[in-house]
């Protein structure tokens, strides 16, 4: 049995046995739904239905229902798209990159972070897909033989790269998540008494039996998937940033976009993971598995990525002046002093200043403060995308073509609606799926369990 250094803090608190882990995580699935859950999902579902009706109105009316105009052709929709995709990045980072680095603390959070990834990417996909206008022709983005020539999509375009990147990212994350879920569904299947539910989990578990060979393959598949998902995470948001960086719009045409976007994505993703997990650990009584140490680790990631984002903001500013290109320089002067300067300063405060508070150990180990700051970061990251997109295009080369963007009710409704759909899906996940990776937690119990570590120290 591998031993862990005794100065490392235990990851599983209290005295737990393998059976306790099963019980703690499967218990909530087997019992009746708690009242708070019913209230929460009702609220989320109402918001989701409202969002869906906004989408229906948009499709029936046309993209003019959004506040877009000739000058500002991308605004809330693409802001929301980039924001959601960015949130999605934390899940794969936790499950893939931290797996390669053998970070055992990820095991308590990877399952729900991956669920968050999948739901966030679905929310993200809504925006560009509906921005196509005639959404029933969305399949035209795929290179399918057709009667126009055949006329193919343009593989040189960053938007086309995005189609491939997002769909690969979504499907690979989904598969990665499900591969890990199969053995845990088998655990629930074998515990279920009600025949209907037993049948349901039996189908979900694909007949997993936990043979030695199955587990060997399982570990190999997880490792290889982590290995190929790692460059995938970085590529996806790099490609999203190229949607902007390959254009010639001042403020977008920047080579630092890929690393800047990737760290921003991880930054906002971790903030969202914290927002969700801090609620989940409390309501589902998972305090022994997700405790202050986990939160502290995530906050450290937030300081690092938040600082990278801060440096990127300042670099952009400096380079816009140093380049000597007056359009580029104006784009940035306009950002912090133009009509949208409030959003720029909002972004600066939320993304650059507030995460620096995590340098204080008192703050980064304080759950309430973390919760507040995680929401602040999410707001800040939404404004970052808004600033990049809207302030850059609302004033470009010809002052005669300048304009402003004002969101319509449908813009707002769709954004709020995706939050509703996201939370509906996440609440369903929290109720019916194992929220922690049971089988992985069991492998670290004897290494990182509190009582086992104390036992080991005595010897």
């Amino acid at each position, binding site marked *: 049995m591998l031993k862990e250094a005794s100065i490392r803090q235990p990851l599983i608190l209290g005295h737990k046995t393998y059976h306790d882990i099963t019980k703690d995580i499967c218990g909530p699935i087997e019992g009746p739904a708690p009242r708070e859950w019913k209230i929460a999902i009702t609220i989320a579902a109402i918001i989701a239905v409202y969002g869906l009706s906004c989408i229906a109105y948009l499709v029936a009316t046309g993209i003019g229902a959004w506040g877009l105009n000739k000058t500002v052709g991308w605004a809330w929709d693409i802001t929301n798209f980039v924001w959601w995709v960015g949130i999605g990045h934390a899940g794969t980072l936790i499950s893939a990159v931290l797996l390669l680095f053998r970070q055992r603390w990820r095991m308590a959070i990877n399952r729900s972070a991956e669920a968050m990834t999948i739901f966030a990417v679905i929310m993200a996909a809504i925006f560009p897909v509906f921005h196509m206008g005639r959404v029933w022709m969305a399949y035209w983005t795929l290179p399918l033989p057709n009667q126009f020539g055949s006329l*193919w999509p343009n593989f040189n375009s960053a938007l086309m790269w995005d189609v491939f990147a997002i769909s690969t990212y979504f499907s690979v994350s989904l598969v990665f998540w499900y591969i890990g879920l199969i053995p845990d569904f088998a655990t629930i299947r074998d515990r279920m008494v009600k025949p209907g539910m037993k049948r349901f989990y039996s189908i979900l578990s694909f007949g997993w039996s936990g043979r030695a060979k199955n587990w060997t393959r399982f570990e190999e598949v997880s490792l290889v998937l982590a290995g190929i998902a790692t460059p995938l995470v970085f590529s996806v948001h790099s490609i999203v940033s190229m949607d902007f960086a390959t254009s010639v719009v001042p403020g977008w045409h920047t080579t630092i976009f890929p690393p800047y976007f990737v760290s921003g994505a991880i930054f906002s993703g971790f903030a969202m993971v914290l927002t969700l997990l801090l609620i989940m650990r409390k309501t589902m009584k998972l305090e022994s598995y997700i405790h202050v140490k986990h939160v502290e680790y995530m906050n450290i990631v937030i300081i690092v990525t938040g600082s990278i984002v801060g440096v990127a903001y300042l670099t952009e500013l400096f380079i816009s002046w140093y380049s000597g290109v007056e359009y580029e320089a104006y784009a940035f002067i306009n950002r912090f002093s133009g009509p949208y300067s409030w959003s720029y300063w909002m972004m600066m405060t939320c993304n650059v200043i507030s995460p620096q508070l995590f340098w204080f150990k008192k703050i980064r180990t304080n759950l309430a403060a973390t919760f507040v700051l995680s929401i602040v970061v999410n707001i800040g990251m939404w404004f970052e995308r808004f600033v990049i997109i809207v302030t850059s295009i609302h004033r470009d080369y010809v002052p005669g073509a300048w304009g402003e963007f004002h969101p319509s009710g449908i813009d707002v409704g769709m954004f709020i609606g995706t939050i509703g759909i996201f939370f509906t899906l996440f609440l369903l996940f929290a109720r019916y799926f194992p929220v922690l990776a049971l089988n992985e937690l069991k492998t670290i119990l004897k290494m990182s369990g509190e009582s086992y570590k104390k036992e080991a120290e005595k010897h």
Partner: protein
Amino acid sequence: MANKVFHVMYDDDQKLMDGARALVAKGIRVKDVFSPFPVHGLDPVIGVKRTRLAIASFMYASTGTALAILGTWYFMIHDWPMNIGGKPSFSWIENAPAFVPIIFEFSVFCGAHGMVLTYLLRNGTLPGMPASNPDPRTTDDKFVMEITTEQNGGMSESDIEALINTTDVYELSIKNY
């Protein structure tokens, strides 16, 4: 003589490991082990070979790379070259940098999904498949070692049972099959 199958249950992964080592040292062949999580170090003891799924994944990914190269050449160069800002549309190699993202993404797509499908098929885990673990507790906190008389031809049933009982067994069930 009917073939017998022994299901030896342990309540701890360490006990399972010790048990497996002891039995294998006495010349018993372990057919399979059912466990709630991967028990590290068990595979070489009971003779489970390393899986070749990683190699399979590499092959799927290479196929993806080849298909993406072929596709970008056919769509963009051969079948319908487009003049986009005067950029070269007649040569794949001059266009290749712009195709790197899609070639990469498609390789990952094929590598990941090909491997996962192979994994599911090889495991026999597909939607609706029946589970074959001998005891429902093996997905919770118990570990079951499966030993058959068929694979241990040189030993009698009582010999095997006696050897099994020298290890730290939690429960033992013997069935005909």
